[in-house]
């Protein structure tokens, strides 16, 4: 459809000569309502058509990698939490997995189960924000509030579990911070029931709404080849038809024990890999995460939750890269150690950073309103793009 739009809206060549029009350079952001933070998008527009859009990032750069080099591992961990502030548990988990693999630190089964529960609850909370803000980007306010209503429940559970409401610092090197109590377990079960109850409501409100479908289907199509070449990961990659999920294909933290499906984009409302598919994959993942949480809760064994780790943790000389499925895609830390208590180099591979790099490729010859729709469907978190 976006291609059809180009031909419809662009004046024929003969008229282009006689009618003089100017292209305009437009700064979307860093203070713009729908750039999800402080992204600046320089767009070259011809009327309503966007000819080019260059993302300018770095406004939220907080020197994570430099700080992480100058602190012991345990102290660098909270900074990792703060990268993608909507998927905090998943970030901390990725960091811990890297350190544990290099240091050969064992994690008890109970701790691994708790990590899965917290990570999946966080994923649901993150996808609910993605759902809400995407609706907001397209001009529907109400789904945003609805999404926040359920997210509040998930956040409260994580608060009881960890003490934090946004940045949890829950996974620790060698396990998790706190143990599960029966009260929290019953809260989680109540949340799962509520989430499954309102999920069809969300679809009635937004997913199947004709206007929403018209705005998102066939818009911002990313083909399978493009998605792989540009390093798309997570729901965006799966929306383009690649059935790849690190939890299934490179399992970590006992994910291989849980039964769940990996949804992919099938072009239900338009073309495979369009904005609607990216949105829908996230919606289905909410349900799959509910399944995982339920199984983890049922199968959680007794045991300690935190392995004893030396106060001054020295990792052996070596390097490791452990990828981990973050709500936005593949998050991994490349940790290089030279035997000191501090890392020689910690490089983070953030999914938002890589997913954002495609913007100029697909936000070309689309309408201004589509740029907002595409950007929202990629679901970036600027905290992690800029680090």
């Amino acid at each position, binding site marked *: 459809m976006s291609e059809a739009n180009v031909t419809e809206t662009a004046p024929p060549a003969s008229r282009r000569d006689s009618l003089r029009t100017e292209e305009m350079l437009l700064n979307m952001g860093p203070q713009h309502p729908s750039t999800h933070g402080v992204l600046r998008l320089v767009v070259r527009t011809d009327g309503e058509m966007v000819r080019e859009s260059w993302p300018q990032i770095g406004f939220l750069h907080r020197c994570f990698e430099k700080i992480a080099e100058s602190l012991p591992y345990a102290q660098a961990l909270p900074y990792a939490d703060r990268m993608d502030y909507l998927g905090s548990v998943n970030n901390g988990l990725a960091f811990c997995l890297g350190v544990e693999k290099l240091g050969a630190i064992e994690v008890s089964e109970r701790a691994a189960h708790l990590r899965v529960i917290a990570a999946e609850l966080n994923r649901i909370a993150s996808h609910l924000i993605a759902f809400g803000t995407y609706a*907001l980007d397209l*001009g529907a306010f109400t789904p945003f509030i*609805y999404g926040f*209503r359920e997210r509040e429940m998930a956040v409260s559970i994580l608060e009881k579990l960890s003490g934090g409401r946004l940045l949890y610092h829950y996974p620790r090197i060698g396990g998790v911070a706190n143990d599960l109590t029966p009260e929290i377990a019953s809260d989680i079960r109540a949340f799962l029931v509520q989430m499954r109850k309102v999920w069809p409501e969300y679809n009635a409100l*937004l997913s199947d709404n004709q206007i929403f479908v018209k*705005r998102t289907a066939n818009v911002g199509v990313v083909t399978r080849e493009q998605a792989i070449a540009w390093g798309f990961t997570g729901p965006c990659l799966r929306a383009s038809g690649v059935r790849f999920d690190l939890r299934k294909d490179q399992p970590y933290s006992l994910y291989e024990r849980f039964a769940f499906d990996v949804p992919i984009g099938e072009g239900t409302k338009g073309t495979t890999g369009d904005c609607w598919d990216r949105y829908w994959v996230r919606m289905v993942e909410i349900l799959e995460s509910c399944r995982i949480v339920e199984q983890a809760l049922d199968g959680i064994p007794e045991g300690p939750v935190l392995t004893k780790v030396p106060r001054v943790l020295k990792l052996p000389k070596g390097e490791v890269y452990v990828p981990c499925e973050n709500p936005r895609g593949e998050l991994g830390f490349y940790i290089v150690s030279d035997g000191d208590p501090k890392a020689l180099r910690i490089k983070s591979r953030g999914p938002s950073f890589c997913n954002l790099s495609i913007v100029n490729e697909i936000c070309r010859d689309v309408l201004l309103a589509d740029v907002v729709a595409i950007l929202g469907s990629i679901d970036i978190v600027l905290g992690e793009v800029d680090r």
Partner: protein
Amino acid sequence: MDDIILQFHTSAVAVLWPLLSKVPTWITYAVAYSVGGCVVLGWIALMAIVGTYGERRIAGFIQVRYGPNRVGPQGIFQPLADGIKLLCKEDTVPNVANRALFFVAPVLVLLGAMIPFAVLPFSERIVLTNMELALYYVLAFQAIEVIGILMAGWGPGSKWSLYGGMRLAAQMLSYEIPLGLCALVIILLSGSLNLGEIARWQAGPFLGMEHPWIFGWAVFRSPAALIAFFMFYVGGLAATKRAPFDLPEAESELVAGYHTEYAGIRFAFFFMAEYAAMYVVCAMSAILFLGGWHGPIPRPETAEGFEFMKTWSDLIQAGAPGAATFVDRCTLFVSSLWSVVSSNDGIRLIAREAIGAANVVGKSFFLYFVMIWARWTFPRIRIDQVMHLCLKVLLPIGLGCVIWAAVQVVLFPH
């Protein structure tokens, strides 16, 4: 209103105050129109107040939250507090602004929204000017608002404003066409451009019924009118730039569109204009398509309405002779009030006008509510889809409706 003033001038009041009869008629007219104008201005302000408050409370209800509930009981003074805040805010003007356009734009926009109120009837007699070309006048003067918003788009020198202004100009001018076609359907069927005449036509006999009550409304008289009603309403949503057609101020795309650079009272002008325009669209839909001041509350001047109320109270009384419940007592009260009303000409006139006004305002408010409901439910559509809907969907259907109406008028004159 002219006849009311004349009556007022010559008869009842002149008896009470003999001095008044010495006053030349033009002074009475001038005073009466000034008072009327002030009342209408007050009504517009009231619409803005009710609109903002209602919108936020209804939005709160839809979104499982409270909405404003702190200023005054249930927060009803919130709009006043907002108004005071807007008045006290610094009036900023961008450096690059074209100051003349920047200052004139909000005034023109508000003016454009106020002009239709001059001919907008609230009831049969409660209308400032009973103009023969009222419908034409309302449609024609909507364009003033377009000019104002184009100025607001260009004036501040902001690219977002320019986008908003251009989108709005495109959208409003396009939607004038289907709006006009829908009005044309009613003009053909009723044979008049006068809003009062159109309302009276809808109370006329239909399908053998002498007093068809709500079945005399235009939407029931012709399928073309029914389709035209929905089109008029949708077109009205677009012309008043309400969601899902709020592209000119699409906050997630254009920051705030044409009023990005406006603050304080100038911003309030745009705001009031929006709510006033919303009311105009709703009231016009109610008058053109939903019988105006006829129904759903029957007016006593029509025998049928009177009979209807009479039968109803009789039935209640027959069913419950003791008048035991509260509802019964209320019904008894209403029916006794009815007999008083129907006995006196003066009271009857006032009651008739009051019920007529209640009908018009009630129906308008219902349509107003639907607008708010839609805003908090739907996502926003895209500019090419807006144009597609207007020029490729509404326009052909509108033309079809006009042809249908024309054929119907020829084949079935009554």
